[in-house]
């Protein structure tokens, strides 16, 4: 990796070449020099300046280009492997069943709750449905732990998902962008701070829900050892965290992947695992640059799909 020019270096070189007329070789040398000698703070500044320039160029070219998506040439990238998509699918289905058989208990006085519970076989059968779905959720949790521990791809994904100070800066910049205080959207790698939040929120939810749910599932056994207030805490936590998780999924997750005007009616990536090049450029520019720079791909990097994606 050290012999390869970094993305920043290449970007500086390109800029020196196109804007300042240096020939390619000289620009590359100059850029390498800058990269090595400039203080990190300055490098950041350069990066930002270049970003602004790039964005301006892109806007200008977009104004001329008919459609950005068409301009991307229809190339697609494989963002998520089948393994990851299956994990998501099992989790999504089990969570839907858990919510449908669980939430009516929290709102048992509503007429619709009775209808939903009766649909699942009434109050004596729906708990069994709930526990079967819970078993699948526990299973997918263990599956995921094995995935991030035992597979190269999983470990690489996990590393990319670890929160970094840059995520806080990205979030701050995103807010400023929303408020119109900057033209610059934060530039994300494979996982934006939003996606990282979603990922770690699931850890929190899984720990609370599976932990408290196990106590409730085996109340009689737990009460042999623990006092009643212990199971009462489990009940309260299970009920409250369930509502939080449901609201987060319905409001936040569904907005991001379904109701966001750019994604409506849905972002198909969770099924196909693919993402268009244009979306890559807009939403994961750092990853896109890394992939297209010719540097060797990491195990978690999205790979270009060879066949033509065309219209979706």
């Amino acid at each position: 990796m050290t012999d390869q020019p970094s993305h920043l270096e290449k970007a500086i070189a390109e800029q020196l070449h196109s804007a300042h007329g240096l020939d390619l070789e000289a620009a590359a040398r100059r850029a390498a020099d800058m990269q090595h000698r400039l203080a990190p703070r300055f490098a950041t500044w350069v990066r930002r300046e270049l970003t602004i320039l790039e964005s301006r160029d892109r806007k200008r070219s977009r104004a001329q280009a008919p459609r950005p998506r068409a301009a991307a040439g229809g190339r697609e990238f494989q963002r998520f492997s089948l393994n990851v998509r299956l994990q998501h699918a099992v989790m999504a289905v089990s969570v839907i069943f858990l919510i449908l058989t669980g939430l009516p208990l929290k709102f048992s006085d509503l007429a619709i709750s009775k209808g939903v519970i009766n649909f699942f076989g009434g109050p004596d059968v729906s708990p069994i449905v709930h526990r079967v779905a819970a078993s699948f959720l526990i299973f997918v949790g263990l599956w995921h732990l094995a995935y991030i521990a035992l597979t190269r791809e999983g470990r690489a994904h996990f590393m990319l998902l670890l929160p970094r100070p840059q995520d806080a800066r990205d979030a701050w910049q995103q807010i400023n962008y929303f408020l119109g205080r900057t033209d610059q959207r934060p530039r994300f790698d494979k996982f934006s701070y939003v996606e990282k939040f979603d990922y770690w929120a699931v850890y929190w939810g899984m720990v609370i829900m599976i932990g408290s749910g196990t106590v409730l599932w085996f109340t009689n056994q737990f009460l042999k050892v623990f006092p009643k207030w212990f199971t009462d805490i489990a009940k309260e936590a299970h009920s409250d965290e369930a509502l939080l998780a449901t609201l987060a999924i319905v409001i936040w997750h569904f907005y991001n992947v379904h109701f966001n005007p750019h994604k409506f009616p849905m972002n198909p990536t969770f099924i196909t695992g693919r993402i268009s090049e244009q979306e890559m450029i807009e939403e994961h520019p750092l990853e896109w640059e890394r992939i297209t720079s010719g540097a060797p791909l990491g195990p978690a990097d999205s790979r270009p799909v060879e066949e033509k994606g065309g219209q979706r």
Partner: protein
Amino acid sequence: MRTLAPLASAALAAAAAAQPVPAPTPAPPPAAEVRQCGICHGRREFKQVDADGTARTLWVDERELRRSVHSKWHCIDCHADVDRIPHPARLAKVNCQRCHFPGNPVGAPEDVNYEGYVKSVHGRLRLAGNLKAPACQDCHGAHGVVKHTDPASQVHPTRVPATCGRCHVQIFAEYTTSAHGISLLEKGNTEAPSCSACHGEHGILPAKENASAVSATHIPETCSTCHGMTEFNLRYGIPINPVRTFRHTFHGIANELGSARVANCASCHTAHNVLSASDPRSTVNPANIPTTCGRAGCHPGANANYARGRFHIDPSSRDAGIIYWVALFFKILTISTLAGLGMHILLDLAKKLRHRHHGAATRD
């Protein structure tokens, strides 16, 4: 009139069909006739001795009759099958429906409860021929019927338990020592429930039947008639709303959703022997909790851990102890998380709208 006459006769015929026994016309009983019955029935020693040696008094206390709401009626208005003297040895049971039917012309209180009685467990047994099942007069009294508001009435709230207890002996014994029974019978507190406050009056159904006021699904509702009111509970030193808090437990939720297997109010507190938890005889006294929870089919093997913690928890109240703090933590977490996420969504949407508004063809 010509056109009305057939109609009127049809209506009369319909009324006659609906009420097979024509109503007697109200007229003060001739004193002579009463005295005629009194010739025999006015004597205290007048009795019938059956073959097995049991004696049945046939004495009718004329003073009791005079004090009753039926004082203006003559014996044969009710004992209508007496058409000659001496009359047959065994008379038919008096049919109160002779007068007490909706729209009766004699001004008898309209018995809208009759339907309920016929469908009730008592009425069903009676109609099936079980003579031990009570008819009207078995509860309301025969010759001495007075209004139910009269403390002398057999169906006055303070006397209902004893009336029902004539047959339901064991339950009456339990009830008299319960918090409800002591309050009503010893302290004369009519706010305390008699039998009919929970079971109903005429339409009493077996607890096993879903429609019963004391069935598993209806018990919480029935208890909430009193214990659903905060001021009522506070008056009797019950600091929380026991019914509302019950409805938020797994027992209460499953009960609400129609499960008959889970514990309802009576499962833990008993039906008739309800006592304050501080009473050592109470099934919900901490010392008795393991036995109560450990009943077969519930939580076999329940131990003292079952009593370590609060019951009827209201998570929004400080009295809930640690549950209050857990609930508060999640409330704050939920509100702050959703506020943050909601704000992010709104800012995003606002930005997108602004872009559209400015006519930008770009896609951000």
